[in-house]
């Protein structure tokens, strides 16, 4: 994993701004909707905190995976 943040500081952000803004906005919107739904269903789904990690850490794929798979995997009474 690359954790060297020095190249990030050298980027001319203003030049990249028109590229980044729409994609960033849509991704934030997607993650926001997903987190709202996760908060409502936190006590019902299987492994809620693992799904939180997936939603936050995997860009675009994570929220979609949660909305397709995670929110349907409801915990049963005999599990707990």
């Amino acid at each position, binding site marked *: 994993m690359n954790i060297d943040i020095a*190249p990030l500081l050298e*980027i*001319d952000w203003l*030049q*990249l701004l028109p*590229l980044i803004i*729409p*994609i960033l906005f*849509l*991704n934030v*919107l*997607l993650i926001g*909707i*997903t987190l709202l*739904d996760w908060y409502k269903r936190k006590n019902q789904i299987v492994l809620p905190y693992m799904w939180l990690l997936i939603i936050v850490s995997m860009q*675009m794929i994570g*929220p*979609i995976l949660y*909305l*397709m798979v995670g*929110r*349907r995997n409801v915990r049963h009474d005999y599990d707990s």
Partner: protein
Amino acid sequence: MNNLAILIRVELTEAAKEYKYVWLTIFFIILGLTQPLINMYLEIILQQLGGTFGVMLDPNKPSPTSNEIFLSTISGQFNQIGLVILIISFMSLIAADRENGMQDFILTRPVSIYSYVYAKLIAHWLISMFSILFGILISYFYTVYLFGSFSLLKLISFSFLYSLWILYLVSLVIVISIYIKHQVLIAVSTIGITFVLLFINNFNPTFSYLLPSSILNVAAHQISDAHDFHHLSVVSCLLFTISHLVWATMKLKRI
């Protein structure tokens, strides 16, 4: 026909409760945005993020036209990662009904198998086309804004033909989910079959008009003239869709 309308409405409200309209639309809009933006700003991205000093793009390279960029969005994004996500969202189409007993419940009422299968087909086609059309439109506006215009009529005929390909995909998922019980296996086998279809279509253009995936050639021809195509492809795609539906209803009747 009344049953059909009710079953379609059930599917559509179920999708609304799962926020499917929202996230599928956002997903396709992001896909449609990325390709034209990356093509436009490739030089800046290379300069800023590459970490490769001395690398430059040929300044004399022919600049891509807007319809080429749009077609590369479709073939590079929509037909690859977009297809995978779309099929994964289809995978519970009949399998979930079977698992929670809803299928038996519906088919023991006075509801014909035809209206059950056609409701599935039409509802999921409408949901996916809603999202894909938003993605195509946003991609079109960005391409026009960044690279220059091409006619909106071409886009409309393209999206009509593309929607027939999506219709075929839904019917393929219906047929496969009758034979395979497990949801993940349905998704994997459908993705495998569609990628094989797409690969053969690109690999051998002579007989490919017999394949359902060759309708994409006709669709691409609407936008740029540089593609081999055969008008029979439209007929073969529709024939495949109808035969899948007939197959599925016959099989369901026997069960």
